[in-house]
């Protein structure tokens, strides 16, 4: 599996916040999701990975190259959608595209206007008259219109209604469909991006708490609802987040595969039931455990 982006032991210090030794590898053709609460360091990490702010120590290589030697070449191949896109507010959408085009070697105007049409953004409008969601889509259209091989998005669904959010998710899936292009997306999770991400990283307080293939992660984390006293003691003791209620208790396990046999009796007797855990459940539990 080819690595498209590789970070090694990255650190970055702000006065009140640090990235504390981040290492990650993003596979070509994947959708990589970086999830975490506000203030976890998602935006800082994204900015370091796209070389918009310098890091203190560590290395970043994109497409096998370093920014130090190949910055213009790398940046040409990255489509970036910032959390809060900055535009000249008094200018039109069309002016914005003309302004941006010379910065990219492979600008494709017809692709851009086709996307605007799909997103129902009027090219003649002044940017200040677009809604927050439309500005986000304008930023996405720009990022998708210069032949990028890697799309990096920071909280891309913020401000989008459900229709445009769905359009964005479909667009991201289509972007990676041929297996050559890659998406890295940072998000606080509850917005559908957890659906499409394949590799997930949980970030908390400037560190990576978890990195795993999403399917693997979801297959080992399960909610177990159980009748009080129905589970073997050893199993119950290993559950996290146990909530005791009058009509049945519940707890999370992150080792469902190992516990499966021990749960079989209670499951067959109807004294225990299983429920999938969401990425949000898992992230919250891990943050709490820190």
């Amino acid at each position: 599996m080819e690595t498209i982006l590789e970070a090694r032991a990255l650190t970055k210090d702000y006065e009140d916040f640090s990235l504390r030794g981040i290492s990650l590898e993003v596979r070509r053709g994947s959708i990589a999701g970086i999830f975490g609460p506000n203030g976890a360091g998602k935006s800082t990490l994204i900015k370091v990975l796209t070389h918009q702010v310098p890091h203190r120590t560590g290395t970043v290589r994109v497409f096998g190259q370093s920014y130090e030697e190949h910055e213009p070449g790398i940046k040409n191949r990255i489509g970036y959608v910032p959390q809060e896109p900055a535009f000249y507010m008094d200018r039109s959408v069309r002016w914005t595209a003309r302004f941006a085009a010379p910065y990219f070697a492979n600008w494709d105007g017809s692709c851009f206007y086709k996307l605007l049409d799909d997103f129902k953004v009027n090219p003649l409008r002044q940017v200040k008259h677009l809604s927050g969601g439309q500005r986000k889509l304008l930023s996405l259209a720009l990022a998708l219109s210069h032949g990028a091989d890697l799309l990096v998005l920071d909280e891309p669904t913020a401000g989008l209604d459900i229709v445009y959010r769905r359009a964005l998710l479909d667009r991201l899936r289509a972007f990676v469909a041929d297996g050559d292009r890659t998406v890295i997306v940072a998000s606080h999770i509850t917005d559908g991006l957890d659906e499409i991400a394949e590799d997930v990283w949980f970030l908390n307080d400037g560190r990576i708490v978890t990195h795993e293939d999403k399917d693997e992660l979801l297959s080992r984390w399960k909610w177990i609802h159980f009748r009080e006293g129905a589970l073997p003691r050893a199993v119950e003791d290993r559950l996290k987040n146990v909530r005791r209620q009058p009509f049945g208790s519940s707890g999370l396990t992150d080792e469902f595969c190992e516990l499966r046999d021990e749960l079989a009796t209670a499951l067959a007797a109807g004294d225990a039931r299983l429920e999938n855990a969401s990425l949000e459940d898992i992230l919250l539990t891990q943050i709490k455990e820190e």
Partner: protein
Amino acid sequence: MQAKQLFISLLPSNPDPMYKQATDQIKDAIATGDLGPGDRLPSVRELSEALKVSAITIKRAYLDLETEGYILTRAGLGSFVADVDRNILRERKLGEVRAEMRRIVRTGSKFGITLDDIIRLTRQLEREPYGDDSGS
């Protein structure tokens, strides 16, 4: 007889609506004896709070149970398990077992597993010490 504690859990991933999961599980509790005739059911509020669903969901479940004759609701007193005919409970469960068996028999014929195989497996399972197959 000491009634076992009521165990109800409503799962969003279950294809059945919440109120139906509740009625089915209460029927099961009556069938297994966890709830006996005359036992008082938790109040709507108690159950809706514990299960984190709206009172409307539980009210609907209780209403259905009452319509089907499983419980009786007395204004101001609460809901109580009715004197349910054990045969009705058995018939209901038999229907579920039948549906499961149909699935097993069809799976079997699709993958070349004969009825004899299935019967042999069933006997084997019955001999397994129920409730203690985890430790061995």
